[in-house]
């Protein structure tokens, strides 16, 4: 009952934040709305017993990536209301098509399986027992470093590529 209340609260916050982010004229306001949406998402993750993901969502998205966005907004001298860049009927048609395709995909994915199936068929009791015996981080850590070893190692290569890319991009225009 209380969980339902919080789910609705976070859902409204997340969707409201996302819509406000798109509609806001000022890029900095957009960014803050997005942070609100991330907060709400973290709350939803907690309700799903995905404690570690909730924390990572906050640390990486709200705490790191959004800071970079803020830097970019400041770097590009934005901050005053900008003109709408989505002009012309063609652009609008493309935008509506992409959004429609996304919603169709979402609909198919959600109708394909019920919620219990998506959670691997585990009940609340099993989840609680796992969390209690291994801890919120241990539950994630175990599969991450045993079953998904290769994706984990590839992540390091991805991060390496990100470092190289960032430096190459930033250095190009420097004398």
């Amino acid at each position, binding site marked *: 009952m209380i969980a339902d209340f919080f789910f609705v609260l976070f859902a409204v916050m997340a969707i409201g934040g996302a819509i406000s982010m798109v509609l806001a004229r000022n890029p900095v306001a957009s960014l803050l709305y997005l942070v609100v949406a991330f907060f709400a998402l973290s709350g939803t993750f907690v309700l799903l017993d995905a404690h570690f993901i909730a924390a990572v969502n906050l640390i990486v998205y709200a705490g790191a990536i959004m*800071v970079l966005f803020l830097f970019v907004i400041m770097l590009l001298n934005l901050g005053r209301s900008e003109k709408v860049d989505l002009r012309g009927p063609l652009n609008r048609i493309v935008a509506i098509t992409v959004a429609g395709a996304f919603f169709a995909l979402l609909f198919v994915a959600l109708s394909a399986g019920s919620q219990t199936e998506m959670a691997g068929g585990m009940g609340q009791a099993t989840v609680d027992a796992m969390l209690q015996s291994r801890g919120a981080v241990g539950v994630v850590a175990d599969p991450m470093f045993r079953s998904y070893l290769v994706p984990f190692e590839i992540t390091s290569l991805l991060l390496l590529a990100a470092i190289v890319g960032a*430096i190459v991009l930033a250095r190009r225009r420097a004398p």
Partner: protein
Amino acid sequence: MKQAYVGVAILFLVGLLTSGMFLLLSHLASAYRPTKVKAMPYESGINPLGDTRERYSVKFYIVAMLFIVFDIETIFFIPWAVIFRDLGLFGLIEMFIFIFVLGVGLAYAWKKGALEWD
């Protein structure tokens, strides 16, 4: 498990109320005698020169990007640290590879002068 977050919710509420109360209190109690000069940005007493929104060094941008990468690295360290004694030698080696690859990244950034400030 989830009931622990009740405390977080209450604390967030208390924190927000405190901030709001401070703002409201000073808004109500403070004097208002705005003048043109008072509302100018402070620039050591002279009239402001030029625009504030100057472009600034790309360095800050690189730092923010490197920060994201190493922040994610740290996020991977934490679950590993929690269970690495169960993983044994296997866990040790897999993390060494991970750290080595990112060490190469850091060395590259260093070599390219991305960490230089002058």
